[in-house]
């Protein structure tokens, strides 16, 4: 069984937003709904100012608070590391949206909660998620944590990485390359 994760090298991100649009096309989302987003931050003081960009999406945490609070087990985590939402069980209480510290869950037109699912149908066929393939600078690297030959594993072993909000104890599966 693979163990999926993602590495994001935010320093390479140009902020073009193609990842967001590719995801919206993949899941046929209206413009106001999205499963990934870019967070822009300014660093330093004039004249030495720099903009940093952080692509953010569901972190597929190993200790997901969204799963813990869901009353019907609509949110669940599979052995491959992906956190899913079963729309047939979701009551739309939005408790998971309140519990997620990353603000990556949204409701659809039926009030059912949705989010990034690492394009599970797609990767089952050996493809990569569109947010990965569409990026011109290879900001995202997706792969199997347990595969010693995967590029993801190699990069994680080589580079210094960090996760977002580590003090929340969620153990995210999305890693960021330290600058």
């Amino acid at each position, binding site marked *: 069984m693979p163990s999926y994760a993602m590495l994001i090298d935010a320093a390479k991100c140009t902020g073009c937003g193609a990842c967001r649009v590719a995801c919206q096309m993949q899941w046929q989302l209206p413009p106001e709904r999205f499963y990934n987003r870019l967070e822009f931050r300014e660093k330093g003081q004039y004249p030495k100012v720099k903009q940093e960009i*952080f692509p953010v999406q569901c972190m597929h945490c190993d200790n997901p*608070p969204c799963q*813990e*609070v869901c009353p*019907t087990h609509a949110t669940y985590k599979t052995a491959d590391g992906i956190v899913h939402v079963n729309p*047939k069980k979701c*009551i739309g209480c939005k408790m998971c949206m309140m519990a997620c*510290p990353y*603000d990556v869950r949204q409701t659809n037109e039926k009030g059912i909660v949705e989010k990034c699912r690492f394009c599970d149908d797609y990767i089952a066929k050996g493809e990569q998620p569109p947010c990965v393939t569409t990026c011109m600078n290879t900001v995202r690297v997706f792969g199997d944590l347990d595969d010693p030959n995967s590029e993801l594993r190699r990069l994680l072993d080589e580079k210094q990485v960090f996760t977002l909000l580590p003090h929340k*104890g969620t153990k995210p599966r999305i890693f960021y390359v330290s600058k």
Partner: protein
Amino acid sequence: MNYRTALGLFASLIAFGLIGTLFLLFKGHHIMGTSQQFPWGLLISTYVFFVVSSTGLCLVSSIGHVFGIEPFHAVAKRSVVLAIITLMAGFLVMGIETPQPLHMLYMMVTPNWTSAIFWMGSLYGVYLVFLFGEFWYMIMRENHAKARLFALLAFFSAIAAHSNLGAVFGFLHARPYWEGPYMPIYFILSALLSGSAILILLFYLHEGKDSSSPVVPAIAKLLTLFLSITIFFTIWKVLTGLYGHVPGKADAYRALLTGPYALNFWLLEVTVGMVIPLAVLLRKKTRKAAFTAAALSILGIFFMRYDLVMVGQVVPLDVIDQMPLPVTLLKYTPTWVEWAVVSLGIGFTGLCYLLAEKRFDLNSPASGPHKTSASTSSHADVVS
């Protein structure tokens, strides 16, 4: 106000509520004022208001019915009826707020034992069954022993269910305004406050201002106590919230104290809901003073619930904590549809209660070993 006018008023509230509900069902939940970043709105706080009222009625009436303290015997019947109705009103509002209520079936099929919502929902279901048991044996069968047993079960299930409602908020580590053990404790205290205020209102309207019944003065003493404790709790909650300027938490308190919720907090929650009622109760010991204090408290309590739910969401989650953004508070304004559903809940409560007053004998105190000498003879204008 006579019975027919009151019926008409509550029926009108229901009619307005049904129009709003139909709009919501046909147009979709996006017509509410909530958003992806501000997911819980007026209907959640109204649900809390109703179920807090139900729990409070159960807990306060238990003082007489379960623990045998004299003047409180007289409130048992009306309390259990109104506790059932307010709980159903809460369920009604929550049912409308929830986009997929039929999926709640999966709470039984695939329950999640770690979910506070699962426990809250299940325990409120159990609580409702016990309330019905208490109602059946106390009012329909006049069997005090069994009624007392069910009242005791309802008492414990109410505390369990209601503290779990507090845990729905307290378990949210992503939301520093709510996180922690304060919420389950505060919810129980606030239920006692609501229960006392509602019972004073109810018995003042029922017995009239000139009655010599000891019920209203006895509950007024409780209301004084619970108001004082609530003020004490509020002071410490605010001080600990501001202390240390913890990001996210202190920002939310600033929104409450000096930001967009300041008017709600200082005027409605503190002045109308706590300070004036307490001053009135301490200054005058009359039934009318108790009624005024109770009515103001209930109004304040409604906004307490509103502020509790909204202020917890007003600060956007900052995901990149290494480089935090300046705080821009999120906005939420309820739409008329949400107010309509609130009106439906209030109308439902009022109408059902008036019908219950006509249909059942709620005047005689609950029979039992400590039969009260409380007079409940004078009929209220509202039910005459």
